[in-house]
């Protein structure tokens, strides 16, 4: 048997084995015995779909060309896995709670279930993945050719298309059978995942086997191998900084964004804790995968004739050493890598295409209602099957058109750079609530266009899409529009240039547009659910239901989820609500759950639209939300008003209490005043009465006595009159009934007058009055009579109460910008501290002085000054009784004052 025939036989057996594994896994899962498949190990192995044929064969080729650079392709994902707590954990949690089915679904769900965004991401994914599928087909055909060559056959070169078409058809068949066998709400494919896990083991074993053979079989040990490495063409590690960083970033980002990686990482994830194991197990896997890459490359470079394709060293090294068995194992490894990639990528893409392109169109064309005839479930499945076939066929077409030449080898990184354009929207979506749909859309489009122009189109050699003139001289002949030196950024590696430019502009536009646009209410809701996924309940607030008919929902759900699944779902929901039977109340909660379940099958946007149509088109509209917001605002206003009112009430109560206290005080004061005034009136009255009785009753009175008694009566009457006058005056002043008689005059005249009046009937020499006439040259414009009354009262008081041996009264006038102060200071013993508080009260007379005053003078003075907008206070610490009168600046007649300064009085 020739090696080629043997190869075909082994290959066929391997495919049959895969079918059996997948089939057995599906059956076991169906019978509920699939627990062993939900192991973290299986999850980790399924992640190995990252290692495609491009990495299986290409890593060695890459190492042979540029040394250690191939490591970046594995180091990036290692960092992402090791740092799972940052991003992966959140992605998986969101994926599980929102029933996310693909990258496109994630982005669309996050940004308000926007289908436009989903379509964009889907197209990007298809464009980015198709060349990659072509690459897998190419690797299989190339490895077939290598075997054929070794077997001495020259024919296969012409058969490469045939090989490719066989492989493509086989893969499409497998994917359709196991990828669309069920329309699971969780979008999990046990059969496929199991098959992938088996393939992961096969490719790891194959590479390790070849590596071990190379190190110990060919080189003769570890140290010899190391020496051999240093002696080879790639003996010196030359690390290109820019490429190193860019490639590490690119591979890490692609690990998150590649549709197939998202499928296995998030969608097929059974249990969040699997991530914990995968966080170290996957790095171990890729480390083992890359362990022998350099030795294989070095041995290939040294033992194989010059000009051999380094991409095939994994295969040709064992072949050249006559190890056919090992070579077949190696071929199986490459075959596994290629097939697993194509299968998962096709499933992921078909989910996207059917959920975001076919279903929305179908819903629109048929009117979408579940009551329409035709089984939605079948439509979805058919759409997926066609999409799988379509995607694989596109890959083949690409392979066929590009001629399967060397042009394909660079497509891996080009493809990576394309799909990572999703990264800003993805990370922004799950970490930043301010990210908006418009931002995501514009960022994505900018990044996509720049990638297309700077990397994707120029990657086709020979000007297939982009004429060479454009590459050389720029678009439209504009120098700054050269694809590989866009905006004049030159001197960079084309890949670094494209990645740097597309990612930075993408991110920048995404952030800027997000900042200036407003998200719709649904976007805000989804944004909060995504960003705060750990705090939020998994419940989605989507439907203000109540008008939905459960039966219609049931009909629709059966068509999408399958009859038994839908019935189980409805029954359990009804049981939770306490309703017997199959029809639960269409509560908001239930509708959200139903929508989520259906989103697993047809995508979030479609499910949303379908439920929306059934429940009478009452999805949460902007209007509803605004109504809700209004209501909230109204309630807020209402409660604020209540609060205000209660505060007001409290204030009023406080005021009332104060008023009451005041009234009580006033009443007490009034009583005190009345008793005081009775007392004051009674004393002269009783003496008048006594003396008038004497005058009337006693017959013998000397004329001198008569005159004395009559004059006492007169004195007392005068005192009474004065008291009554004062009382009247005070009452008038206190009641503000007095009208001021404003006139103009000089302060000096006024004081002269007061002093003169005070001296009437007194010995002028008794009291010395000191004044500074110069300071008194001030014109006043106020009620001068009243002011005179105050001055007079103060001077008379000084006359009466000053107890010094040589009484002196000093009158000081001081004028400042704001006020005019007039101090009356005598050299007596002054007024004690306790009395200072009382002197301005009515009927307050200090000490034992019996001077005949009623004790109203200072009270009246205070009232007068208040009426004149000034005040009077006692000035302590002046070695005598001191009163200060303050008058406002407004009483000073400014114009007259200038005249005065020149006129001497």
């Amino acid at each position, binding site marked *: 048997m020739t090696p080629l025939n043997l190869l075909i036989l082994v290959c066929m057996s391997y495919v049959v084995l895969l079918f059996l594994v997948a089939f057995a896994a599906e059956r076991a899962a169906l019978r509920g015995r699939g627990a062993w498949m939900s192991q973290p190990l299986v999850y980790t192995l399924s992640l190995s779909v990252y290692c495609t044929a491009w990495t299986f064969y290409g890593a060695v080729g890459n190492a042979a060309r540029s040394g250690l650079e191939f490591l970046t392709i594995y180091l990036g994902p290692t960092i992402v896995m090791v740092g799972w707590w940052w991003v992966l954990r959140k992605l998986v949690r969101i994926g599980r709670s929102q029933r996310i089915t693909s990258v496109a679904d994630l982005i669309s769900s996050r940004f308000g279930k926007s289908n436009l965004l989903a379509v964009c991401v889907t197209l990007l994914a298809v464009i980015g993945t198709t060349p990659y599928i072509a690459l897998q087909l190419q690797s299989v055909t190339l490895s077939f050719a290598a075997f054929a060559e070794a077997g001495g056959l020259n024919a296969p070169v012409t058969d490469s298309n045939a090989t490719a078409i066989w492989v493509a058809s086989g893969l499409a068949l497998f994917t359709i059978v196991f990828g669309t066998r069920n329309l699971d709400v969780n979008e999990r494919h046990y059969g496929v995942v199991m098959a992938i896990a088996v393939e992961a083991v096969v490719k790891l074993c194959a590479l390790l086997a070849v590596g071990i053979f190379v190190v110990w079989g060919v080189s003769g040990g570890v140290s010899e191998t190391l020496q051999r490495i240093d002696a080879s063409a790639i003996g010196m590690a030359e690390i290109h900084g820019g490429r190193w960083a860019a490639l590490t970033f690119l591979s890490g980002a692609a690990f998150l964004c590649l549709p197939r990686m998202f499928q296995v990482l998030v969608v097929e994830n059974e249990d*969040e804790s699997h991530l914990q194991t995968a966080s*170290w197990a996957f790095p171990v896997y890729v480390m083992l995968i890359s362990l022998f890459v350099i030795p294989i490359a070095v041995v290939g470079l040294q033992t194989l004739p010059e000009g051999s394709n380094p991409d095939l060293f994994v295969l040709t090294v064992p072949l050249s050493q006559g190890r056919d068995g090992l070579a077949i194992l190696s071929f199986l490894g490459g075959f596994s890598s290629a097939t697993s990639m194509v299968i998962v990528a096709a499933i992921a893409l078909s989910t996207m295409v059917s959920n975001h392109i076919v279903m929305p169109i179908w819903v629109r064309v048929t009117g979408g209602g579940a009551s329409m005839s035709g089984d939605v479930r079948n439509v979805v499945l058919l759409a997926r099957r066609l999409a799988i076939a379509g995607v694989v066929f596109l890959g083949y077409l690409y392979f066929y058109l590009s001629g399967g030449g060397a042009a394909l080898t660079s497509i891996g990184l080009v493809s990576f750079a394309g799909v990572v354009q999703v990264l800003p929207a993805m990370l922004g979506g799950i970490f930043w609530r301010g990210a908006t749909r418009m931002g995501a859309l514009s960022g994505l489009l900018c990044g996509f266009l720049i990638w297309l122009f700077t990397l994707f189109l120029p990657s086709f050699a020979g000007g297939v899409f982009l004429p060479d003139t454009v590459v050389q001289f720029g678009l439209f002949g504009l120098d700054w529009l050269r694809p590989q030196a866009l905006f004049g950024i030159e001197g960079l590696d084309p890949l670094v240039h494209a990645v740097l430019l597309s990612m930075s502009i993408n991110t920048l536009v995404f952030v800027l547009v997000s900042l200036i646009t407003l998200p719709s209410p649904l976007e805000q809701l989804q944004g909060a659910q995504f960003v705060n996924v750990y705090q939020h309940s998994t419940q989605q607030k989507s439907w203000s239901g109540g008008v939905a008919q459960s039966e219609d929902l049931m009909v629709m759900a059966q068509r999408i989820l399958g009859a038994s699944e839908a019935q189980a779902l409805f029954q359990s929901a009804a049981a939770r609500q306490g309703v017997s039977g199959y029809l639960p109340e269409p509560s908001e909660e239930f509708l959200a759950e139903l929508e989520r379940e259906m989103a697993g099958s047809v995508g979030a946007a479609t499910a949303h639209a379908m439920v929306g149509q059934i429940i009478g088109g009452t999805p949460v509209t902007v209007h509803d939300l605004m109504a809700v917001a209004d209501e909230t605002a109204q309630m807020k206003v209402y409660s604020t008003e209540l609060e205000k009112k209660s505060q007001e009430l409290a204030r009023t109560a406080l005021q009332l209490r104060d008023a009451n206290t005041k009234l009580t005080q006033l009443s007490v004061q009034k009583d005190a005043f009345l008793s005081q005034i009775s007392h004051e009136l009674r004393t002269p009255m009783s003496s008048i009465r006594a003396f008038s009785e004497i005058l009337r009753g006693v017959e013998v009175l000397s004329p001198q006595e008569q005159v004395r008694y009559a004059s006492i009566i007169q004195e007392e009457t005068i005192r009474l009159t004065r008291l009554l006058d004062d009382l009247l005056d005070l009452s008038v002043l206190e009641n503000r009934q007095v009208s001021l008689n404003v006139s103009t005059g000089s302060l000096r005249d006024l004081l002269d007058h007061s002093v003169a009046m005070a001296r009437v009937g007194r010995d002028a020499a008794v009291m010395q009055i000191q004044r500074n006439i110069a300071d008194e040259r001030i014109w006043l414009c106020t009620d001068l009579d009243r002011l005179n009354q105050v001055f007079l009262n103060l001077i008379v008081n000084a006359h009466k109460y000053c107890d010094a041996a040589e009484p002196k009264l000093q009158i000081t006038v001081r004028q400042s910008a704001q006020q005019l102060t007039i101090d009356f200071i005598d050299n007596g013993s002054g007024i004690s501290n306790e009395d200072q508080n009382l002197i301005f009260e009515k009927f307050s007379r200090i000490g034992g002085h019996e001077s005949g005053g009623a004790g109203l003078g200072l009270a009246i003075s205070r009232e007068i000054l208040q009426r004149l907008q000034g005040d009077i206070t006692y000035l302590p610490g002046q070695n005598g009784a001191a009163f200060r009168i303050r008058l406002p600046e407004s009483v000073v007649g400014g114009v007259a004052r200038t005249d005065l300064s020149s006129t001497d009085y």
Partner: protein
Amino acid sequence: MMTSKASEYVYLERRRYRTRRVIEALKVLPVLGLILIGVPLLWTEGVKTSEAMIYFFSVWMVLVLAAIWLARRLGASAIEKTLETDN
């Protein structure tokens, strides 16, 4: 009764405290990884490929061992129970 309750409380707090520190370490680990992977950018003159290989695979082993250790310390239940509100 009181004492047993109190000690239980201390124990729980202690575990929670540990878990938080483990999570912080988990967050720092990728940063450390990036720095270590970035070290070759500082190599000014050529390094033998074999030595570079040994360096990279050592870094890889360190990251893997750290990840294993942290994953074990974190435990399966820790994520679900204690940290729902942490982020």
